[in-house]
């Protein structure tokens, strides 16, 4: 084998290994500690939350204006889903829907657990 192929072969093996690891997602949080009862993804929900909710509820849900603190609030999946879908106070209904809603619910359940 010509010497010049070695970096390409090793690099290719690393790419294949990375892809296999990414497919396995070995450290993906599992049910139920991560709050995936709603079928949402905690880590994707974190991004959606930061984009759609953090301006009122604060980064990471620590509380802001006018959104109340969500961290350690003890809210469960049903309460969070109802608030998102029906709104509460100045919070309009349906701020997030579909997959985004499920992901946000999963994330909020996680940060709400005391």
């Amino acid at each position, binding site marked *: 084998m010509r*010497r*010049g192929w*070695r*970096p*390409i072969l*090793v*690099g*290719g*093996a*690393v*790419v294949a290994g*990375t*892809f296999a*690891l*990414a*497919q*396995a*997602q*070995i*450290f*993906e*949080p*599992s049910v139920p*500690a*991560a709050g995936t009862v709603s079928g949402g993804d905690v*880590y*994707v929900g*974190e*991004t959606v939350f*930061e*984009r759609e909710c*953090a301006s009122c509820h604060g*980064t*990471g849900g620590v509380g802001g204006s006018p959104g109340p603190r969500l961290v350690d609030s003890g809210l469960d999946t049903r309460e969070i889903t109802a608030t998102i879908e029906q709104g509460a106070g100045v919070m309009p209904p349906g701020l997030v829907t579909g997959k985004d809603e499920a992901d946000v619910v999963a994330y909020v359940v996680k940060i709400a657990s005391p």
Partner: protein
Amino acid sequence: MPLADVSETYADLVTAVFSSTIAAKAWLATAAIVLAFVQVTTAARMWGRLRFLPMRGPIVARVHRWSGRIAFLCTLPVFFHCVTILGFRTPDTRVAVHSLVGTFFYGVFAAKVLIVRDRLLPGWALPVAGATLASTLGLLWLTSSLWYFTNVRFGF
């Protein structure tokens, strides 16, 4: 330790410094891209370009090596989060491009490290490998950190 606890521990560690795990990824990737810029400029200096830079000889080489090492360390938490927690995803073009390019990143890195150590390869191999690695990191930064800073928030 159960696998789920690993991601919980990781999240706890990261959020002790940053507001969220996503923010941590965005800033660590930004540190890596800044150091990659140092890598490219010092490499160019070593290859006889950018003569206006005051550094020369062994100092340039040392800065090049250490900026590369620190940049690599900065990418490790990002790798852990992206690959072992989020995995390969294709919900939209940005994430698909990020996943695809991210899969290749450490392969390109490994090839570049081997090329650095192989003095029998043609002279163009190392600059091409280095430029490919820097471009790969640049594309990853554009499809993640820049998106986060412009679409989510700019802050720690």
